[in-house]
């Protein structure tokens, strides 16, 4: 039992060690990997995933999953981008409110379908994944929002910043992580999310309003995907109805499960997820240096998810062994 405990405690430490070993190994082979400039490359790869991963973590902790995050990102980015294009006079900061608001609404719809009809989140969000992507095409008439329409100030957020030349979207990402940490560790509802995922049957017996908590996590997940959407416009300077956010949900799920969030609910930590995101970032940054085609990325994500599932199972198994006997 105490071995299990220390294993859980060491989960984050384990990811950290993996990151360091990985970086060292790559650095030995290609020294330029360990330069400050490359660190900047790594960091720039991660903010969108990090923001969305905080939302996905909450959803997974509550024993659900959100497959529609990439499409929410795309639709929110499109709504915001079109606003920039069609109403250039409005203040660019308003774009954040619009993107986050759109995302929150789409997330709320997911949550409502899951709670009202008692449907598995995976099927609901597989449906809305396509639904939201389709809507993106419809509202945009399948046209991209080009570079010239994205406000310069917004694009600048991904370029420079007053502090050490680190782009502000990185600060935003870490800011979101800190907020997520506060939410999960220091608010009552944050802990209720964990309680709900840990034992959904007992939660109502302890006065937890399961439906409301579920709605909240899906809404937060959507809102964060929306925030990632406007930052996508900042980072890449365009919004495309088919590319923007496509496949994004898988990167997010990969990062979150590497970060030690259990698919069985109830387990997960913000530091773990942050490290998971960074590890994925390091891998992505190392591939071109090592001469591995970018095409290998998906295969790596897939493998990583499966390995993380196995690790999660091993960790769990020790805990439930007494309760559930496996058929021999």
């Amino acid at each position, binding site marked *: 039992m105490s071995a299990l405990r220390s294993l859980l405690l060491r989960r984050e430490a384990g990811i950290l060690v993996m990151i360091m070993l990985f970086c060292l190994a790559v650095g030995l082979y290609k020294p330029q990997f360990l330069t400050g400039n490359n660190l900047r490359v790594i960091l720039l790869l991660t903010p969108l995933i990090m923001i969305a991963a905080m939302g996905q973590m909450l959803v997974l902790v509550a024993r659900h999953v959100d497959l529609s995050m990439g499409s929410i990102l795309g639709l929110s980015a499109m709504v915001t981008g079109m606003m920039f294009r069609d109403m250039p006079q409005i203040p660019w900061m308003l774009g954040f409110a619009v993107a986050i608001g759109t995302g929150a609404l789409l997330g709320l719809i997911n949550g409502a379908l899951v709670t009202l009809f008692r449907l*598995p989140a995976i099927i609901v969000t597989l*449906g809305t994944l396509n639904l939201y992507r389709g809507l993106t095409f*419809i509202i945009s008439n399948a046209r991209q929002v080009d570079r010239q329409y994205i406000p310069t100030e917004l694009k600048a957020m991904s370029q420079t910043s007053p502090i050490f030349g680190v782009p502000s979207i990185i600060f935003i990402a870490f800011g979101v992580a800190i907020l997520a940490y506060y939410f999960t560790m220091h608010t009552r509802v944050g802990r209720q999310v964990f309680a709900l995922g840990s034992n959904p049957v007992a939660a109502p017996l302890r006065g937890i309003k399961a439906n409301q908590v579920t709605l909240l996590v899906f809404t937060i997940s959507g809102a964060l995907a929306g925030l990632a959407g406007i930052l996508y416009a900042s980072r890449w300077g365009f919004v495309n109805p088919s590319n923007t956010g496509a496949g994004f949900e898988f990167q997010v799920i990969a990062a979150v499960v590497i970060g030690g969030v259990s698919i069985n609910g109830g387990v997960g930590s913000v530091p773990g997820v942050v490290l998971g995101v960074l590890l994925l970032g390091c891998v992505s940054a190392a591939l071109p240096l090592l001469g591995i*085609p970018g095409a*290998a990325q*998906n295969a790596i994500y*897939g493998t990583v998810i*499966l390995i993380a599932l196995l690790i999660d199972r091993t960790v769990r198994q020790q805990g439930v062994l007494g309760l559930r006997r496996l058929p021999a």
Partner: protein
Amino acid sequence: MSAAETSPPANVAGRESAPPRPLWHLVLVRPETLTLVLLILGVIVASRLSPYFLDIGYILRSFALSAEIALVALVLTMVIIAGEIDLSPAANMALSACIFAWAQASGVPIPLAVLLGLLAGLAMGGVNAFFVIVMQLPSIIVTIGTLILYRGLAQILAGDRSIRIAEGFIGVDRILVLGVPLPVVVFVLAAIVLALVLGGTIFGRQIYQIGTNEVAARHAGIRSRRIKLILFLMIGVVAAIAGIMTASRLGSVRYDLALGKELEMVLMAMLGGTYIFGGRGTIPGTFLAAWLLVVVSTGMTVANLLPAIQMTVLGILLIVSIIATNFIYSRTQR
């Protein structure tokens, strides 16, 4: 549009479920009946949009474009009835097609290349089965992982290029059997065989039983793990067949073959009245749903609707159809 048509019959079906049930009523509350009604409505609406729809040849040619997906959906129906799910077959199609294409492009004789593709499909089914049956992980999340993995491997193998298929193997959809494109024939034959297997054999019977109550099935001496293994292997091989058929139809293979098509597969099963929590559903239901879906999407194409709108409609259809079948089943449960 189709979404709005779904709810009224569902309500009628639900209200009628009083204890003494006449035969007509048992027939009426079957979700497949709903699918059939929708299909007829769909054809009527579509033929008003375009006279093409009264041309059976046109519908058959349109169906040939989705036949591979529909073929996999048939086996997926059985997997879902058994209480599991597989989201990876579309990626499996891509990887087995890539392996097949790569093999024949590097000089392996076609029959051997096909065999390689099929073996790859079998292996992919085996990997899913390993994680689900041996490691006892939920299939829903395992197959998301393998979906990304298989697609990623296809990407590594094919890179960004398309692999050309040898001239002689191109055009499976242009082979006509009694005027019907071969993929459609394969689909129809597969539907008949699988309907017999699911509805008429003990294997099919036991699929329903483990999907209804796996614990009770075990107590009745049913080896559920063996059945699930067979199903995962089956869907792996069938996905490979579908992938190779797609390769032949398109004439070249890219890693993004059948990208995102898992939705359509799940949708066909759901629209056909398969219960997402297992234990219920039929092959004829999925069969009808496949036609319904082709009519709807072709109808939308004919009506000059953007492909994107079709995507939206598919998403809505998926959600509405699960809600509707859930509703019907929860009413007939007690």
